[in-house]
């Protein structure tokens, strides 16, 4: 189990954007428009929840199971994009 807790990188701001009807990541002079699953995952990256807590939370919210691989793959990509940082303390 990974005790690290993902948080949105302070270089980005995450918010719901009515004109896009989507969650977005805003950063200087740019915007990433997120699909629904990406938005739901990042919404839970608050620096307090671990990855397994996020997975459990999503499975409960969407009445689904086996979401771990999808969530982990997304977080790996988000990390590579610098969208998230990891709280470890």
């Amino acid at each position: 189990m990974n005790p690290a807790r993902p948080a949105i990188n302070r270089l980005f701001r995450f918010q719901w954007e009515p004109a896009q009807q989507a969650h977005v990541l805003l950063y200087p002079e740019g915007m990433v428009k997120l699909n629904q699953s990406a938005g739901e995952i990042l919404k839970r990256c608050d620096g307090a929840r671990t990855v397994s807590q996020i997975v459990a939370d999503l499975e409960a919210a969407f009445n689904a199971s086996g979401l771990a691989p999808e969530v982990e793959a997304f977080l790996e990509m988000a990390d590579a994009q610098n969208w998230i940082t990891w709280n470890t303390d």
Partner: protein
Amino acid sequence: MDTLLVPPDAMQRRPGPLWLLAEVTYRCPLHCAFCYNPVDFAQAGPELSTDDWLKVIREARALGAAQFGISGGEPLLRDDIEILVREARGLGFYTNLITSGVGLTEARLAALKDAGLDHIQLSFQDATREANDLITNTRTFDLKRKVAAMTKAAGYPTVINCVLHRTNIDHLDRIIEMAVEIGAEYLELANTQYHGWAFLNREALMPTAAQLAEAEAVTERWKARLGKKMRILFVTPDYQSKKPKKCMNGWGEVFLSVTPDGLALPCHTARMLPGLEFPNVRDHGIDWIWHDSPLFNRFRGTAWLPETCQSCEDKDKDHGGCRCQAFMLTGDPSATDPVCPKSPDHGLIDAALAEAEKPGTVHPLVFRDPKNSTRLARPF
């Protein structure tokens, strides 16, 4: 059903702007010879009031704009940018102050942070005091370093922009090293685009091909060393890359700039273009300006493109390049951007590049200040 309440034409409307750039003033304590501001800025009309700007901010946000940049000139010379930031941030804009740092005191920074400012982009002109102060024609170097430390202490990521040109590009190694020392998260190395004052000073600012190649190599070395610790973006110059750029991601597609005196523009240098009527935000709403004004529709899409571009497979990628560059070099704002090798005017670019390779020629810099601006605006 909710959707039935939406009038059919509204459903087919193009998206609104994503990015509002407020150039709140042409006044500036620096006199950079590479400034993209119009050479005749001293002729501009009176600056917009706070209320004018608040109206622009609200209307642009209502159309879906999400980025709010405050630039100039030096925006800190206005005492109301805290008010503008507070309004923009409250409406959901990502707010970005683009500043030389001159005028950013502890008190001002605290007020901006309290207003919700998201981000500060600080411009550096060079890594050594002598070179920084030479190109800006001021003594500001120590102040800039102090401001960088201050914004970092206030919790802002340190994002530095440095414009590269013939007289500082050989110091690039030191410039990057300095950015690392300051603890910058992001460094943008923007090669000079030859607009405004930079066009006027083109011969003095254009690096040689060898200088540019070395700069790219230096950048690559640092990138490999720093990884994610500090991101470096090296913006290649149009002239050397020979690739026309889709100006502002397409004319009237995402970007809306408003000048200090209220002109709404599809790109921050468009007011130099002849034969166009620039709508003023004092007279028109942003909705009309964006969707319906002749200006924003003039170079929208690709239907207006000249023949050279119409038959080109890249036309959707580059929309014929930069309108201002086309105008400055050929006199025709609807020409193919001469940086494109397919342009019938591409020889002008080769000539400018060849000029840069000539040894021993010294071109004096014309500094961006009101006196020079007034002088240059005179026809005789």
